[in-house]
């Protein structure tokens, strides 16, 4: 169940959109940030707010890279695996993450803190290899820097 305020603000967003569907991605993203991922319950709530069926919401949700339809950890680590980051050695970063966190791509750490997901180009090619942790950007990542980042992100 989402708080009444959130529901109101989402209904407001839908009411001011040209069509309800135009607001669909916004609604899904808001619900995702509330639940951590887009749960089945959230899909149902999105459907209700948007006047769509759950299937119609899922048709959209499953298309987008940054909508999670499976449980994720508290913070998602996205490691860019596209060409500029490849040039800059993202594979080393990934390898380091696997070792350090004991997970492979797609998995969540045992403590439920991090989920590691490779992603496409984030437009930080000038600062590659790049990654985000819980939405915060990090560029020119090295294995050493990575340790610090994880430390910091674990704390706040």
């Amino acid at each position, binding site marked *: 169940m989402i708080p009444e305020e959130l529901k109101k603000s989402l209904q407001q967003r839908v009411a001011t959109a040209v069509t309800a*569907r135009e607001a*669909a991605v916004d609604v899904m993203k808001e619900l995702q940030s509330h639940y951590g991922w887009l749960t089945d319950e959230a899909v149902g709530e999105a459907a209700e707010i948007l006047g769509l069926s759950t299937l119609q919401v899922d048709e959209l949700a499953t298309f987008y*890279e940054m909508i999670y339809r499976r449980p994720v950890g508290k913070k998602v680590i996205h490691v860019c695996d*596209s*060409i500029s980051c490849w*040039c800059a050695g993202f594979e080393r970063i990934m390898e380091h993450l696997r070792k350090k966190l004991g997970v492979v791509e797609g998995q969540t750490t045992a403590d439920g803190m991090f989920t590691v997901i490779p992603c496409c*180009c984030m*437009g930080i090619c000038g600062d590659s290899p790049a990654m985000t942790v819980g939405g915060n950007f990090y560029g020119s990542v090295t294995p050493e820097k990575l340790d610090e980042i994880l430390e910091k992100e674990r704390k706040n």
Partner: protein
Amino acid sequence: MELLLFKHNRPGRVCTFEEYRDGGGFSGLKKAIAMAPLEVQQVVMDSGLRGRGGAGFPTGKKWSFVPRDLPGPRWLICNCDEMEPGTYKDRALLEANPYSLIEGMTIACYALGVRHAFIFIRKGYETAAANLARGIEEAKKAGLLGERILGTDFSVDLDLHLSAGRYICGEETALINALEGKRPNPRVKPPFPAIKGLWNSPTVVNNVETLANVPEILANGAAWFKGLAKNPEGAGNKLFCVSGSVAKRVCVELPIGTTLREIIDVHCGGMRDGKKFKACIPGGASTQFLTADHLDVPMDFDTVAKVGSRLGSGGVIVFDESQCLVAATLNLITFFARESCGWCTPCREGLPFVKEILQRIEVGRGEERDLEIMREHIKYLNYSFCALAPGAMAPLDGLLRSFEDEVREHILKGKCPYKTEKQI
């Protein structure tokens, strides 16, 4: 050299509304509003401005396709999906200055008779989106956007649409579906968006950089803009965003027609760690590799096309002699296979096929006939539903054209020649 896109940039921070205004901003809009809409379109047409989203379609011409006599609304959408690997110019532009785009869009709306415009922003560009949101409010307050702009009858609403991440959303018809809240598969063309686009009404889709050029074109005139380019056929400046094996990875504004050599040697401080240049992708992931032979080609749409690649988005990715281009191409194809929207057969199934082949070649299990299969894909993926799959084949095409020996070496040696025994 004269800057127009980065003219208002401030080191380390975003430029303010006052700075933009006082630096000559919004003079283009004021000039435009004093003209007739079709005159504004004519100036853009005369300026030789070509789309900066990748295809290089002449902007004024695109605008001219919009029928003026149909009842119902018309729409303008700014394409800020920028998910083409190696491309980060729109981010650089908007994180430094959102006002050129806002002003450019307002002018475009005036020229096209658009009342309501959208900026479609990719996931991850939240800073750019925040800058734009702030800029829109400021412009509204200053009477430069919203109701009755500059006291005239001309009004424009500008809204942001924040996406959730998917490369295909950058393709203009897929983008229109995405904005409508439908699954972002591309649409059948024709009808083209100019006739039947957003909510079935005439729609223009332009890239961020394209639209950000418009204010200065109006302010300084078509001839001035044309004159900025280094080559006679070219027009204006272009953002080049460089990544890969260069000493300094930068996003710079340079005249159209600047050579790759100048970009790398002068603006990027040469190659990283003194390595030798091997190849580069000149315009984002969906363009063909260029080699050292092409370092002196002027970077303009037609000149790059002439040597078998595309100026594309201006995302230059540089490779040095120590890098395996089979592995690099495999990375690119993997990206495209994952980003296929899944609508048409050649792309959805053909790209994983190519990926499987490159994977085998890279680990030393390639076969001679793989070359033929890949060539078939290069040719026949052109008949996909949209330009994603042909774009995906561009680097592979470049690889087989310029580096066939390297591919063959993998096959003959049964291993990647760039990998040490330990890596294998």
